[in-house]
């Protein structure tokens, strides 16, 4: 068991982190490259970058959807879920200790009690989001397998991590639970670039991307028609 844990905590963790980081960097760079190319071709190069970024930022805080009548609870829970799923893995004292141990870097950590509450909140929020997806006709019908699986995959490391931090509540062997925690977290990290979790980076460019989408290259319509062999055709 110790060997498994050492492998999961050592090389596998590095592989998982590297997969996520390289995948996200690749997606981010490709998207920035595509946007730059679109900008280069656009006939109108006056792009309201600040406005586009501001629109992105507005969605980070809940005030935007508090103004409407529907789905306030869903969105607020989603906000809480994001707060938890980002803050706990990044600022948990145990995690920062691993960073110090492995890479020699560290940062501010959450007080343990607050981390506990945030973990409970995140798991509860994931469950609530799933139930609310199930209960909303439109969302339920739209959902694809990853929409159901990802909240569970996100919650799993939180649950196992909570038991690792509180061994007296742990119903199974502590080392097995720790291994589950490591493996589930690593699985989650590795699928980030290949699932909709890639919005971690693509979210930041979606509004600028939209702006460029509406900025056409002059003559593009003519070139599309020429490619399709319709150059001489009328309307």
């Amino acid at each position, binding site marked *: 068991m110790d060997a498994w844990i050492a492998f999961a905590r050592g090389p596998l963790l590095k592989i998982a982190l590297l997969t996520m980081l390289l995948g996200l960097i690749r997606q981010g760079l490709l998207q920035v490259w*595509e946007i730059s190319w679109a900008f280069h071709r656009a006939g109108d190069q006056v792009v309201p970058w600040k406005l586009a970024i501001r629109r*992105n930022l507005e969605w980070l805080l809940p005030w935007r*959807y508090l103004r409407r009548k529907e789905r306030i609870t869903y969105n607020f829970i989603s906000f809480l879920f994001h707060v938890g799923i980002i803050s706990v893995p990044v600022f948990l004292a145990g995690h920062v200790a691993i960073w110090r141990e492995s890479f020699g870097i560290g940062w501010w950590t959450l007080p343990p009690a607050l981390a506990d509450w945030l973990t409970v909140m995140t798991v509860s929020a994931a469950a609530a989001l799933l139930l609310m997806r199930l209960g909303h006709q439109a969302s339920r019908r739209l959902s694809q397998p990853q*929409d159901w699986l990802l909240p569970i995959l996100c919650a799993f490391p939180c649950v196992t991590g909570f038991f690792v931090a509180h061994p007296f509540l742990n119903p199974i062997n502590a080392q097995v639970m720790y291994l589950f925690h490591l493996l589930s977290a690593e699985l989650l990290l590795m699928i980030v670039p290949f699932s909709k979790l*890639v919005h971690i980076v693509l979210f930041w460019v979606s509004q600028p991307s939209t702006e460029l989408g509406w900025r056409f290259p002059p003559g593009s319509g003519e070139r*599309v028609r020429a490619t399709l062999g319709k150059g001489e055709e009328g*309307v």
Partner: protein
Amino acid sequence: MQVHSQSLPQLSPALLAKLSQPKLTPEKIQERLSYIIEKDRVPDDLPRRFLEAFAAVLQHTNYRQVIDNYARIPARCANCSCACQIYQQTHDPKDVPCYRSNLLLEAYRRHFTLRGIVEGHLKGTPYLTDDLILEMAESYYHCTACRRCSLECPLGIDHGLVTHIARYVLSEIGLVPRALVISTREQLEGATHNTSAIPWAAIKDTLEFLEEEIKDDKGIDLTFPVDHEGAEFLFFAPVSDYLMEAETLMGIATVFYAAGDQNRWTISSQFLDGINYGLFYNDWVLEKCLRLEVDQLKRLGAQKILIGECGHASRSAKAFMKTFGGGKKAPPVVNIMEYTWRAWKDGKIRLRPGAIDERVTYHDPCNIARTGWIIEQPRELLRAFCSDFVEMEPHGVWNLCCGGGGGTVSVDEIRPYRTGVTGVKKAEQIRATGAHYVVAPCANCKKQLREVCEDNGLSDVEVVGLHDLIYRALILD
């Protein structure tokens, strides 16, 4: 993984062969699409042709980067359904903007990303079928492209843009409402160069008649300036105004007269129609229409494009003139409401307070208000001469569409859908105001709202343009 390079992957012969197996007969396609296709022009090999058109569009436009982004990030949270007045009416999951967008995004994912292509090979079936393309055609023309849902997407997906792209691809394989394509053909290639096929002689007669009407009403000698060289503004109204919205034109002409700006504007006799259906279905058409406007501007030595009361004509010129009209050197685009508001603010025109006693409300055309372009100016004008002005809720950026946006108002065959589904929430909104006048500064909105009121028991409501009422309130010395 995405297939990144400036050229797109070659579509494999095996895939194209699979896609070329027709499943629906031309008669069946004609029957299902009815108004979204020209008679006897049913395209064959729909999936293959769709994919080729999609590939060409992705290659030559700026859409691929945005389609790729949207295809990867959707949360499928259905927040957009809260903003969509069509879904709110039907509660059909197929009317959720995210569902509609996914039809095209999935086609992109399956056929233009490595992961999708591998998935397709493993499954052994192509994503695109005749049925799916017909569903796309129906779905994307059920959408009014009002873009209200784009305000609600936490991930920044503009479903209006996806609708625009999908319609563009569909139009390149001949799937476009007959009403739009026939009008556009007349505008770009016909003898009259306008979407309603009105000969210049008839328009000239109309203008002379309106001049007489104004003289009778107001006692002023006013002429509609035609082909005046060197005027500051070249005026483009939707051509339907010359037939059906005479009071709007009279109001605009009288504002110029009252402001002492008779010589600052002109109409071109060669191309006067501001309608630009390209915004609704095809970028080539969009560019052609705007270039015709610029040609007239150069011919007459004018400096600015002035658009009349028309939402899509205003947006297509305002948003795309820089693209097709010379970048930073492109002529500025001004909407008539901006001009009138400025003239009023500068004290060049005066409006009689209390000129309109009946209750008045204002409808924000999506193409003018959704981006926050013109919202307060018309309200300030209305408050200046209406004693009982009330707002619709919601309004401004968050307004509800008239229900006939995205060119659907021009399709008479779907009037029951427009007034019985897409326009119902608007009817409820109007009813709640108790207004007698609904001011809609857009030719399409006016037509749609009149039909909405007629079909939803709002017989006391009168739909008018902003300048129709300004005409009544103007103080002429």
